[in-house]
């Protein structure tokens, strides 16, 4: 509690570090890392780096004095430290390798909290000597005992006699302080004083600090006196318990890769102050350099330049795999980042580092800060935060005493593991292409990706729109009618006409063909729409498609429904506030969620509760498999994950994920799967990936898009672009993007006219008329096919921007084929070849 001492200590250690900073690099290599017994306490000491492990090129070192881990390249001498001991800022987070955040104000019984606090491993661990080492193969386990100095109401007597308070406290106070005291204590008729704050009415912020000062610093109050008072008024159970978090962090080398491991289930903390989140290695991937970039896997992959000056923009922050879809569901956001792969990275002028989240990605948030954006600190960095206990803001409350916002926390917490793996990339691999290659080989090694058979002809993905419901009238009385947009017969015509135009290997994602069409009801029992031609019509179509070497993939929503029908209320996900969860649409004017079905063209999207998901989908599988199609597409399955906060059956996202994985395996058993940009969790089971973005999400803070996902997938999976014909008939540039990224083309088509979509839930589909596209698809397919034949079976190994505006692109494939693309409006020379404006050359 003695803050002043701490500051002195900090300063002392800081000085020590500054002196030590220089000696770090001259550490002698010591071969002491093979004979250790894991788990035994280790007595590392000294203020110089000692070597713990060596790989081929990388070495792991420890400075026992301040628990700094150094991951160093033995050839170049480049290194990364887990804490920045020589930083000039007073912010101790820079010198921390873990920051633990916990709830402190609120009530444990109903999981309602209103404040939280945090402790970092430097100020609350190193400085208070709460650090110990244990032996580990090729590394070390650092055990922190973090102590809190958070002020709570329990530090002040529940009731105290007038006599004692005057003697111990009041006589030392000035008028202003007495006034502050009287804000928190009320005098009873017998003269004694009663504390105004308590469990239900917490003390926090400035008021807490001030009261602490009044009692313990200005006044002469002590914990002994507190115990005496609490004994007198029979309140001994209220003695303050201090937060103490014991957390073990493992650092070890696997080959040259650094692994950081935390077993969350084994972290101990005071249950009254439950752990909320952990920031792991906040400054490990940080730099003050201006040459290079931060890599975030947003969209296709995105770069933030280290010399970016966009400090006034919103900084990048996003949950992996979309996090929990229930969080902030009512908030409109014009641009939402989406990360399908659990990776991150940084490149400086000399090297690049790729980070992979092996465990815990579903609770991880990636933050990227550009130089000067975070507390004006001169560091560009990427850092991770892991949500241990999810919570949601229920609203703000104002009372006479306090003004606070109330959060309700989930009772289901993350008890799994956090495991991060870092790869150090040098030379030609020290860039995002290298990162992608490293991640691809990581996925191939652990069996997630396997090299696929190459398709003879270029695949093309066609999403056909089946049927949509629209309000119709009979003698003035409205009813829900069905508008058939593309019948099975029309689909057959489309396929045969396109075949005549030379289009081959069509993968048809046929949406809205069952259970009420595009606005779909529950799918526990699948019934093909008679308006489109019924089950026999579909069977004929499937047969026809097979005969021309194409495939029909009926598309169904598997984890959401648009109608309540077919999904009982109790089987839906619930918000933490207790309402049935929905994925809202927002009105375009004021961006308020459509909470009720006021507008008939606005439909609901309910979420199948993860607790029910396996049952739901096993019923579905049974019904669907009986159709005997063997192909299945889904636009929502595995693209996001939902928790469920129904009554007491809280199921957090992390514990919900096994249900999704189990369902996936069940469905994939008998079906070839086509999913729309799914989470990387699905990669091992999915055959075709559609809608893989070729750009980042468009946040202003991002400086470039890179085809990271495509570089990871190419050679292993067939993947397509997002729908090219969103609202425009000019897709030349999008086709170039497809060639740049090696993505198959994807079009959305319907036989009906656009005007048929008016007042339906598809009213924002503007350019899907097949008639207008027929010839264009033929042309674009031929162009793509030409490129495809050149790179068939190869994988994209290098992607590079050659100019500052990032309009000139050079890509290289594993079979030696290169592609030069010029997105500019003037012809340009790319790697020795002149490429006309808005054009490309495959060589």
């Amino acid at each position: 509690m003695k803050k002043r001492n701490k500051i002195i200590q900090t300063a002392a250690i800081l000085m020590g570090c500054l002196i030590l900073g220089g000696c770090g690099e001259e550490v002698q290599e010591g071969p002491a890392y093979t004979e250790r017994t894991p788990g035994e306490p280790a007595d590392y000491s000294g203020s110089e780096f000692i070597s713990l492990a060596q790989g081929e090129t990388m070495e792991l070192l420890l400075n026992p004095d301040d628990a700094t881990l150094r991951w160093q390249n033995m050839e170049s001498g480049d290194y990364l430290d887990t804490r920045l001991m020589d930083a000039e800022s007073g912010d101790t987070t820079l010198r921390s390798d873990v920051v633990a955040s916990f709830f402190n104000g609120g009530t444990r019984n109903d999981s309602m909290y209103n404040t939280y606090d945090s402790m970092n491993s430097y100020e609350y661990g190193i400085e208070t000597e709460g650090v110990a080492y244990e032996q580990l193969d090729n590394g070390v386990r650092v055990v922190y005992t973090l102590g809190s100095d958070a002020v709570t109401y329990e530090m002040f007597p529940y009731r105290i006699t007038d006599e004692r308070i005057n003697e111990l406290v009041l006589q030392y106070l000035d008028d202003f302080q007495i006034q502050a005291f009287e804000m928190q204590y009320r005098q009873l008729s017998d003269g004694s004083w009663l504390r105004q704050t308590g469990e239900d009415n917490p003390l926090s912020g400035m008021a807490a600090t001030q009261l602490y000062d009044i009692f313990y610093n200005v006044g002469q109050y002590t914990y002994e006196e507190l115990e005496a008072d609490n004994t007198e008024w029979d309140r001994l159970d209220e003695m303050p318990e201090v937060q103490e978090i014991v957390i073990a962090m493992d650092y070890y080398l696997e080959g040259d890769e650094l692994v950081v491991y935390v077993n969350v289930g084994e972290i101990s903390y005071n249950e009254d102050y439950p752990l909320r989140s952990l920031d792991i290695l906040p400054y490990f991937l940080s730099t003050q350099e201006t040459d290079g970039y931060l890599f975030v896997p947003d969209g296709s992959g995105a770069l933030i330049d280290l010399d970016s000056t966009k400090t006034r923009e919103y900084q990048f922050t996003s949950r992996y795999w979309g996090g929990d879809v229930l969080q902030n569901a009512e908030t409109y956001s014009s641009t939402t980042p989406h990360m399908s792969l659990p990776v991150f990275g940084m490149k400086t002028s000399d090297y690049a580092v790729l980070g992979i989240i092996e465990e815990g990605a579903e609770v991880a948030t990636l933050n990227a800060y550009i130089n000067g954006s975070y507390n004006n600190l001169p560091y560009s960095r990427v850092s991770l935060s892991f949500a241990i206990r999810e919570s949601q803001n229920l609203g703000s409350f104002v009372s006479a005493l306090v003004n606070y916002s109330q959060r309700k926390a989930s009772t289901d917490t993350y008890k799994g593991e956090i495991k991060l793996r870092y790869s150090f990339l040098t030379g030609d691999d020290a860039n995002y292409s290298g990162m992608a290659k490293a991640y691809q080989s990581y996925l191939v090694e652990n069996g997630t990706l396997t090299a696929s058979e190459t398709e003879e002809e270029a695949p093309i993905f066609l999403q056909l729109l089946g049927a949509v419901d629209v309000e119709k009238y009979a003698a003035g009385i409205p009813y829900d009618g069905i508008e058939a947009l593309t019948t099975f017969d029309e689909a057959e015509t489309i396929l045969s006409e396109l075949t005549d135009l030379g289009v081959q290997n069509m993968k048809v994602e046929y949406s809205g063909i069952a259970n009420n069409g595009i606005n779909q009801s529950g799918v526990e029992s699948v019934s093909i729409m008679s308006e489109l031609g019924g089950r026999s019509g579909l069977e004929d179509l499937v047969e026809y498609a097979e005969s021309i070497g194409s495939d029909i993939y009926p598309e169904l929503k598997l984890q959401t429904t648009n109608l309540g029908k077919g999904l009982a209320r109790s089987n839906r996900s619930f918000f933490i506030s207790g309402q049935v969860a929905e994925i809202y649409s927002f009105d375009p004017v004021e961006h308020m969620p459509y909470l009720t079905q006021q507008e008939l063209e606005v439909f609901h999207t309910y979420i199948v509760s993860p607790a029910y998901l396996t049952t739901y989908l096993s019923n579905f599988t049974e019904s669907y498999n009986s159709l005997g199609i063997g192909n299945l597409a889904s636009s929502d399955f595995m693209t996001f994950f939902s928790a469920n906060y129904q009554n007491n059956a809280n199921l957090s996202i992390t514990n919900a994920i096994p249900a999704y994985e189990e369902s996936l395996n069940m469905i994939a058993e008998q079906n070839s799967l086509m999913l729309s940009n799914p989470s990387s969790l699905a990669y091992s089971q999915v055959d075709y990936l559609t809608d893989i973005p070729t750009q980042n999400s468009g946040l202003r803070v991002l400086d470039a898009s890179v085809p990271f996902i495509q570089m990871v997938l190419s050679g292993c999976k067939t993947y397509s672009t997002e729908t090219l014909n969103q609202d425009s008939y000019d897709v030349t540039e999008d086709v170039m993007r497809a060639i740049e990224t090696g993505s198959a083309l994807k079009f959305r088509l319907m036989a009906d006219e656009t005007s048929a979509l008016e007042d339906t839930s598809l009213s924002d589909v503007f350019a899907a008329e097949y008639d207008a596209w027929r010839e264009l698809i033929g042309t674009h397919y031929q162009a793509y096919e030409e490129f495809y034949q050149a790179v068939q079976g190869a994988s994209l190994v290098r992607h590079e921007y050659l100019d500052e505006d990032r309009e000139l692109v050079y890509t290289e494939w594993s079979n030696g084929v290169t592609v030069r693309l010029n997105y500019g409006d003037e012809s340009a020379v790319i790697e020795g070849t002149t490429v006309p404006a808005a054009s490309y050359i495959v060589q």
Partner: protein
Amino acid sequence: MRKNSRRNRIAGVILILLMTVMLPFRSVSANDGYNYDRNDETYATPEAYEWTASLRAEDLGIESLNGISDMFYRDGRLYVAMMGRILVLDSEFQQVMVIENDVTYPRSVYVTEEGDIYTAEQSLGAIVQYDSNGNYVRSLVNPEITGLGDVTYQPVKAVVDDAGRIYVKAQSVYEGIIELDPEGNFRRFIGANDVNPSLLEIFYRSIATREQISRMQLWLPTDYSDITLDYDGYLLATIQEASTKEPIRKLNGTGEDVMQTYEYITGPVGDHEGGATISTLISVAAAEDGRFAALDSQESRIFVYSEDGLLAYTLGGSGSGIGDLSSPIDIAFMEDYILVADTVTASIEVFSPTEYGNLINVGLRYQRDYDYAAAAECWRQICDITPASIIANMGMGRYYMRTGEYEAAMASYERTGERAFYSDAFAMVRDLWMEDNLGAVILVVIAVIIVLWLIVFAIRKLAKKGVFEGKGWVKVLRKIRYNAFTWPGYMMSKPFKAFDDVKYEGAGSVGFCFVILVLFAWTAVVSAQYGSFVVNDSYGSRVNIPMVLVSTVLPYLIFILGNWAVCVLIDGKGNMKSIFKVLMYALYPSIYLNLAATLLSQVITSDEIALHGFLVGLGMVMFVFYAFVGLVMVHQFTFSKAVGSLILSAVAMVIIIFIGVLVVTLLTDFVNDIGTIIDEVRLVL
């Protein structure tokens, strides 16, 4: 700036337009485009403009864009006013010059056709003029403005017309826009806003104490937020105040608002509810082709209107993505670009038209040149993509009227919601049809009459022969004839006697009265659903059937209840049953008249609306007459007592409605409270 552009390549007509349209490569769906349809409901549109570039200080060769306040474009030069300087850029956004001498903090910049640059220096109270080379020419300070009182003269916007007249918008001046002569002397105020307090406000003020009045808001006329001159010499001005009906005005030389208005289409007001704006319009800009745009600071959104005041498209919107805006302060048209100055990101955001936006722009340009055929090609494509587009349907309508395709014109005008235009087209269709078919119509009418007469003749003949005697269905038919025709006919021809029978002999059928009630409600639904566009306000919007039914039937039922209650009190002799019968029989003619009116509505133009009104009105008059007579008879009232009882019945209706509303409200609150308690309990558990 990098010129991220290329030739537009869209199919069809656009290729022949020979227009180089700058299209950016990056297309990001940020804030979605939308527009309003004829029912003022929003519909989704493709993006009309997309983000092309963000120009920051470093791109423009200056150290900062802090305090950027205004932009103006003319003849290949973009002028940007900001703290301490005026920046001049060429059409490639390359710096031409920076005026820094004699510049403090200009709040606006305007350039005349001759190239003279005028700025408004708020803090100096001056309009400052520079020549085209950026040299200081003169300052016009503190004109003697009559009636300004203690207010300090702080000009924030200044524009100069062809004749050298200077129009100034000054801070805290509510008398209107200040007009100065070319020498800078005050001439007059123009475009003063009238204060229109509501009757209630006037009443309240008249009874309020002096203290209360002082605490109330001042009755100040609204303040203009921005002014500009359009290329036809009109002064465009925006008013930054919620719920204004005309927040964008087009003022002529005399200060009169000459903005095109419509009977049914909401004019240029930004986002709106009930015809009044809900936007905060802070900036206005005019394009050379007649379009004008207004900027809403609340949602960071830009509304672009055609010359005739129709919403062409929206763009912008707040957010953190590319093409989103943070805190926009000013907009400008620059050839095909739309520029937005953003203060938070300290940048100029450049937007350029997409295929969709370009189609609208080109269509408008053709329309301005009276080339309706070429314009129609654009509008046709717009209608394919967004069938609800008012601006495109208006263009199509005009085109079809010219080509004589009146039926197509009808369909297009119907989409715009303007009934007068629709009706004009319909009148043409009808006249042409009548010309062609008059003979046939007469023949058909004669044939129908003959056939009907023959049928009646045959039935009578058969009846005489006794063919129909004793048959069950004949009895039913006879009963229907009696109830539906004979008795009502008797009632209508001899109302006093008939209603007397109701009172004493229980004449009339309660069952049939219920049939009347149902039929009457049905005619309301039919006229809401099938009444022609000319007469039907709810045409094309989704009809809320239960609402129509309730609002049709409920007043009569409440009246019956009220009248019965009153008459019990004042000793009326009628019971509930006879009151019900009276009212229902009185309503009976309306069923036929309403159906006839709905039928008639299909063949009338808006000039002949009176006919439709006459039929509906006749039904109401007959209802009032027969109901009155009937009530007098069943209650056995004198005339004056009957009138009195009706007034009291009306009062009783109000009370019943009041109690009904009260009960419903209390019940709703009760149910909500129970719900809240359940929620709370659930949260705690």
